[in-house]
């Protein structure tokens, strides 16, 4: 049985090392926060200028001066620190974040990431911090459904959508399998409700199956 979004978030959370500094991208990746153990020591970075971001703010906690990168109100944890945008992106681009988790339109077997534009001719381009996050963190994890609505795999030999970053993704968490990607190509780490053979067949490109599978 394929994974729910919640189960995917739980699996990603499990793979974040204790004490890591982590940026959770807008959308599905923010769900990972719900599955981080409070004693994990994981510190969340939000690129609008904060380390030590807490859970979403509700009711009286809501403060228009305290939001995440998705502009949603959030809370502050003990040990938090605020800084301006140049310092925040220097932190990211300088390689100080341990893990960044992002959504994607496509990821290539070698770790190219496409998540900012579908390249549609009438689309208004908008990139935000995606390209900085892609190249900045020590490890970039992608969370996505493995297949698009039209059934086409989003893990591909070569991205057809415009790139966000080149060779930057190391791990891809999907609803039916987890993969490592990189210079040696895509490798299946774990499958969910599907055999490795079926997976290879449906993705339609070479995948190395992990010895642990």
């Amino acid at each position, binding site marked *: 049985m394929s994974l729910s979004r919640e189960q995917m978030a739980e699996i990603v959370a499990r793979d974040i090392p204790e004490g890591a500094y982590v940026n959770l991208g807008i959308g599905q990746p923010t769900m990972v926060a719900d599955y981080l153990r409070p004693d994990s020591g994981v510190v969340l970075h*939000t*690129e*609008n*200028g*904060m380390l030590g971001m807490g859970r979403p703010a509700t009711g009286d906690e809501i*403060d*228009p*001066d*305290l*939001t995440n990168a998705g*502009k949603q109100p959030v809370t*502050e944890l003990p040990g938090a620190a*605020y*800084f*301006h*945008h*140049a310092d*925040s*992106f*220097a932190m*990211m*681009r300088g390689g100080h974040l341990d893990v960044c988790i992002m959504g994607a339109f496509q990821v290539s077997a070698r770790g*190219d990431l496409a998540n900012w*534009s579908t390249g549609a001719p*009438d*689309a*208004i*381009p*908008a*990139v*935000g*911090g*995606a*390209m*900085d996050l892609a*190249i*900045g963190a020590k490890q970039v994890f992608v969370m996505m459904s493995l297949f698009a609505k039209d059934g086409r795999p989003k893990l591909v030999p070569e991205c057809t959508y*415009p*790139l*966000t*970053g*080149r060779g930057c993704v190391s791990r891809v968490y999907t609803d039916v399998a987890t993969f490592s990607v990189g210079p040696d190509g895509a490798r299946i780490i774990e499958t969910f409700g599907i055999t490795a053979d079926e997976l290879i067949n449906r993705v339609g490109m070479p995948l190395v199956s992990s010895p642990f599978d």
Partner: protein
Amino acid sequence: MIFSAEEAVSAVRDGDTVLVGGFGMAGMPVELIDALIEHGAGDLTIVSNNAGNGDTGLAALLAAGRVRKVVCSFPRQTDSWVFDGLYRAGQIELEVVPQGNLAERLRAAGAGIGAFFSPTGVGTPLAEGKESRVIDGREYLLEYPIRGDVALIRAHVADRMGNLVYRKTARNFGPVMATAAAVTIAQVARIVDVGQLDPEVIVTPAIYVNRLVQV
């Protein structure tokens, strides 16, 4: 140093590049933008993270036809219909800049850096036309400073000299934009006497601030 919003924004002239702080509503100098609309300067280039939301603030400035070009990282939002309409009608120019390059290019302008090799955007469509170079085995793109004629920012408290402190994530672009403009105008919630702010915690020193507006 202390002005009304109307007096303060009179520094903006037709054709100016105006840096506008804020990330969403956090740190957005709403009252200064309103005064700028009232003031009437046009043919502006606006540098900001977004391109306006709803029908107020930057969106209202755009709707009033005062903006020739927007330089930002993320113009397309659920409520960016004013920008969307102008863009699709070919009535506004857009330069999309990755958020980190936007911040770093503003910093470069303030810090006297002529240009810098940035790690962001390599291999992407935004690399087109940019000089690239491999340094120590990694590829970079050459990025140039973004200077403003005027910066409109929002801080939390100022002293009468212009030293500023911010509040939480509303700090965002304010401190870098303050360094990158010829004239920096800061709207603040409170102005205190000189000596009332702890010198250890000032984020924007007064040297970067030309006009204060209390709102």
